[in-house]
């Protein structure tokens, strides 16, 4: 009798597992190819631990070199992490762009794009990446980037806002 009961419970559990498992299977199926692709990318990506974290400048050091509020523009700081600070540029409540400074010591590959750059802004090498980003490299190390978040915010606007950073102030952080 006991054996029958336990078999019945076992069967019920199995059905339960199949139902739950089946649901999960159908749910994740659609995105499986994407997950496999990123798995592969993850395997090819080195761990961040390989960089010297002690050498990375704290993001808080960058804040005071950002363009200031005014002329109807509002700057809202959004992130401050090791080697990174970011702010939103807003006007009338709309986000026009993201403004950021990052220390390339934590991501050395970022520097490569400036090596072939034939343009400069205030003497710093300039690079345009994708359709939304313009950036420059200060003191061969600090990347200042402006990313459009509104279709009307053109590459020329990005360059104008790059110039509003205190670039020479940032350069002194590296000395």
């Amino acid at each position, binding site marked *: 009798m006991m054996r029958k009961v336990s078999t019945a419970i076992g069967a019920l559990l199995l059905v339960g597992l199949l139902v739950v498992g089946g649901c999960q299977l159908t749910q994740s199926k659609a995105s499986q190819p994407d997950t496999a692709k990123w798995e592969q990318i993850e395997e090819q990506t080195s761990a961040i631990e390989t960089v010297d974290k002690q050498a990375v400048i704290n993001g808080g050091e960058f804040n005071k070199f950002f363009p200031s509020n005014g002329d109807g523009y509002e700057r809202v700081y959004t992130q*401050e*992490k090791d080697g990174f600070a970011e702010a939103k540029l807003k006007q009338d409540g709309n986000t026009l762009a993201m403004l950021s400074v990052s220390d390339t010591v934590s991501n050395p590959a970022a520097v490569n794009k400036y090596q072939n750059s034939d343009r400069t802004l205030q003497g710093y090498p300039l690079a345009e990446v994708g359709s939304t*980003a313009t950036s420059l490299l200060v003191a061969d190390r600090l990347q200042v980037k402006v990313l459009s978040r509104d279709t009307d915010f053109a590459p020329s606007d990005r360059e104008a806002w790059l110039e509003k950073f205190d670039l020479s102030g940032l350069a002194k952080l590296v000395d």
Partner: protein
Amino acid sequence: MSKPIYELVNNLPEKNLTVFVLRSLDKILPGEWENIVGFENTIRQVTGESDAVLIEQIGARAIQLYNDKSEGYQRAMWLYQTIDSTGRALGQAALAGKVTENVPFLSIVNRLTPKPEKAQTIDLCMKLVTEIVAFCKINGIPGDSVGDFVKALGDYGGESLVRMAGLVCFDGLVPLGPNFIKQTETVLGNLTPKDLESNPAFKAIKDAVPGNKTDDQLTFIGASFESVKGWMGGFVESKGITPQGVVANIRTFVDIADDKMDYFGAFLDISTNYYEHTGVQTLTRRLVERAVAEI
């Protein structure tokens, strides 16, 4: 390590009870939330870029940042997942396979027990503390002044704002009623460290709550509630939200009987994970914003 970030985002459901419940908030916050699922899709939406190679670069950097424990993203993810998981086991069993149908609230009502007011109040506060701690883990403490930080906190939009609206509606108004802010203040005022230690939600995330002793943690919880109660009250008033209104918006897909209203808070508690769902979305958005700026 827990699941990789791309897997968590790829596995976000497009349709389930949590998504329906979050959509019901559209009446309060029109157009604020779009259920963005999928890692690659999130990168496209957040950055506005479409070049495949560039998207892979951004994704690789995001994965790298997420995988580094000292960056704090995994801790934030754990918080969002943990605070939502207390009490959900029963719900998942009861609702297995029924997620896209009209949800049979009545069929599980006999398994529900409304939480005592004190426990519900602590739950509300613990979700709030989760939000504050997770915010700092994800974003750091942006800016150079208290004003900058308050501005950063006030800049909630999209899924973050909807999560806060969910907190007010599903963990405040529905289970505790229209006076939930006053009630929470009263309960918090009389709460002892011992009360706190016996609460499952607190126990689950205790290690992440600032403070060395339970006493200090209680102070932090009180201060957290104090700092956002004004926003909560203003939100309820400006949007004219009532418990009945919240329930009416959900009623289109859940068959709630009027005499079982007391059970509805418990029903939402066990059957949805809106904090985790929108938490994954917020975290990924911020991670991608950082990754695209750093590459």
